[in-house]
Structures are given as structure tokens and as C-alpha cells.
């Protein structure tokens, strides 16, 4: 240690100065403060954010899920429970029951990667706190969204390639660059769809 370092005071005062410098700089630059005044101001997470799940719908309003059990197989937390049924008219499989235990879920996005039908997406919704454990198990009623569900709140969804089969509803479109800026088409989702049962 040098002599001035030995003396305690010069370094202590120097440190004080540095802290004061930050304080005054921030006092005159309130807008540049790093603090996000949640909930008045919200941080915009990226378009890939892995939040709460949704099940997308076809144009006619039926759910795209065909109950193939791929998501529940790929899930490391085993938090997805599916029961398959058969549509008597179209002979097509569909989920009679589709439950996600949000408390078990680790939000790894493997279900989205595993889905061959473009049916399960994740949203940018992170405000999920619940006051009863039973409400954490969300079923079809909470998960299925209508076909016109806006793109804005959507998060992690298939990016391995463009979504051609189903059009761009919910997809990013071919060759369209990903956005990290705040989204303008920020139509809020229907709160009823988001509310736990």
C-alpha cells in the first residue's frame, strides 16, 4: 500500500466523491435512471419470452391440438396431462382434457419445440402469481385462445422455420426479422382467457 492508501482518509473521501458524483448525475437525469417503475412502466421482454402457455386455434375456432402427446413426452417436468377424444363427425383426435400444472412447469419451451401441429405457444405473460394451489392447474378453458389472438403478447413459438401451413397468424412469417423493440400491435389479450378457473 502506498502512503496515501495507508492514511485511510484520502481513499475514503475519494470513494465518497465517486458516490456523490453518481448521485448528482442521477439527480439531474431522472429519466435515464435504470430503475423500471413497475407496474406503471413495464419491461418489454423479447419476442421469445417464455411465459404462460396458450393453445392456438384454427380459423374455424377448433383447437389445433390433436392430442398426440408429444408435448407431454418432451416435458422434463411432466406437467402436461392430456386425455384424447375423437370427433365423431370428422374422425379427428382432439384433447378432451389438457391440463398444465403451472407450478410444476419450468418454462423450458420444450413443449413448443415438440409440437408438430403449431398448437402450443408461450406468451410474454409473466404475471402469474396465484393465491390457491388448485388454480395453478390450468385447463383447456384457460389455455385455448381464439383464432384472432394478437401477435403482440406471444412469446416463444416455433422458430426452426417459417410457418407456412397455417399462414402467419401467430407466426413470424417467412424471412421476417425478429423484433426486440416494443411491440406496437399491443392489443391486450382478453382477460377472461387469462384468468384462472
Amino acid at each position, binding site marked *: 500500500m502506498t502512503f496515501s492508501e495507508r492514511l485511510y482518509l484520502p481513499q475514503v473521501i475519494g470513494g465518497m466523491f465517486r458516490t456523490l458524483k453518481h448521485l448528482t448525475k442521477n439527480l439531474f437525469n431522472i429519466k435515464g435512471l435504470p*430503475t423500471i417503475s413497475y*407496474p*406503471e412502466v413495464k419491461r418489454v421482454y423479447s419476442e421469445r419470452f417464455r411465459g404462460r402457455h396458450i393453445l392456438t386455434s384454427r380459423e374455424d375456432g377448433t383447437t389445433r391440438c390433436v392430442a398426440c402427446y408429444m408435448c407431454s413426452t418432451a416435458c422434463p*417436468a411432466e406437467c402436461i396431462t392430456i386425455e384424447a377424444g375423437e370427433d365423431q363427425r370428422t374422425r379427428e383426435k382432439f384433447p378432451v382434457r389438457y391440463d398444465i400444472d*403451472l407450478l410444476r*412447469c419450468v418454462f423450458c419451451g420444450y413443449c413448443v419445440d415438440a409440437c408438430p401441429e403449431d398448437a402450443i405457444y408461450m406468451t410474454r405473460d409473466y404475471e*402469474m*402469481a396465484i393465491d390457491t394451489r388448485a388454480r395453478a392447474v390450468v385447463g383447456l378453458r384457460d389455455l385455448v385462445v381464439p383464432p384472432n389472438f394478437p401477435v403482440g403478447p406471444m412469446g416463444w413459438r416455433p422458430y426452426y422455420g417459417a410457418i407456412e401451413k397455417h399462414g402467419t397468424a401467430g407466426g413470424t412469417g417467412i424471412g421476417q426479422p425478429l423484433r426486440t423493440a*416494443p411491440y406496437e400491435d399491443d392489443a391486450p389479450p382478453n382477460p377472461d382467457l387469462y384468468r384462472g378457473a
Partner: protein
Amino acid sequence: MPVQKIDTPNSIIPRKAGVAPGEGPEKGLITLPGEAARDTGDDLGGATYLTTKLDQVVNWARGNSLWPLPFGTACCAIEFMSMVSSHYDISRFGAEVVRFSPRQADLMIVAGTIVDKIAPVLKTIYDQMPEPKYVIAMGACATSGGFYRAYHVVQGIDEIVPVDMWVPGCPPTPDGLMYAILKLKEKIERGEIRRG
């Protein structure tokens, strides 16, 4: 709804102006069960007026001075640190006084996996907290064991202590946890949680 972009020259983190809780589309989210039937206290007679008002004042005070005890064991504790630090800054809600002594804390935030070996410790610390006390289970492991369906992991801390708020996520974002604290605060101020 027009979105106001906020320029952040020194940061890569985008942000936007939201709306105050209970004003915008989040209203549906924050609404708690039983809210419609909530007794507003307007129809009470003069004799109970004072005590009701006193209750309200006490609840208001309790809701605005939640001193957290972070029972942080794992990854969620790092996100708890993020919530306390400057970017999210929980002190705006009177909850910045992080107390590691259970005797001085109101709110236990269980952040991280609770395994069988530490379960008696959690119970002891919960017992040592003075009433009124509240518990937030943060993250998949604390709430349900998460993807550790394993021989040494407690499958949800409600095996050991009562829980007031569950926060899904692995780990939840700091704002997700903040949302839980705000929701708990609202609940306390309404007098829906009565302890002590």
C-alpha cells in the same frame, strides 16, 4: 391502446409505459376471488366504525411495510437479488428492508429448492417469525418441487408451512415476483388475510 416508448440510451433493455394496477387490462388479473362480495364497511353502525377504520389503518400499514426474509437457497434467490437491486427496486413498495432475522420479518419469500435436509430449518424459521406473517413460494421448486420429482426434494413447501401466494416460473422474473408481492399487499390491505 397507444404505447409510449421510453428511450433508454444506456441500456439495451426496452421498456414501455404501462398502466397503474387496476386501471388497464390487468384489472382482470388483479381481481381477487370474492372481491365483488367484499364488505366495504359502509353499512356499519357508529359503534363498530372506529374499530373498522382502525383495522383498515393497521392493514394499510402492514401492507406497505412488508419486510421480507429471503429464504433463498438456489437460482430463485439470484432473481430475488435482481428484484432488490436497482433495476427493479422493491423499495418503492416499502419492502426493501431485507431482514435475515426471522424475528424482524413479516414476509418469508421461499426462493429456491427446499430439500428434505433443510425442511426442519424452514419450519423453525417460520415458527420464529412474529405474527402477522405471510409466505410467498417463489418458483417451481418451492411451490411444487418443479421437475425434481426426486428422493431428496420437498414436493412443495405447503408440506411444511402455509403459503399465501404461489409464483410460477423457473425462476420467475423479478417483475413476476413483484406482481406477487403487490397482489399480496392488496390482499392484506383489504383484510383478506387475517393473522395474529
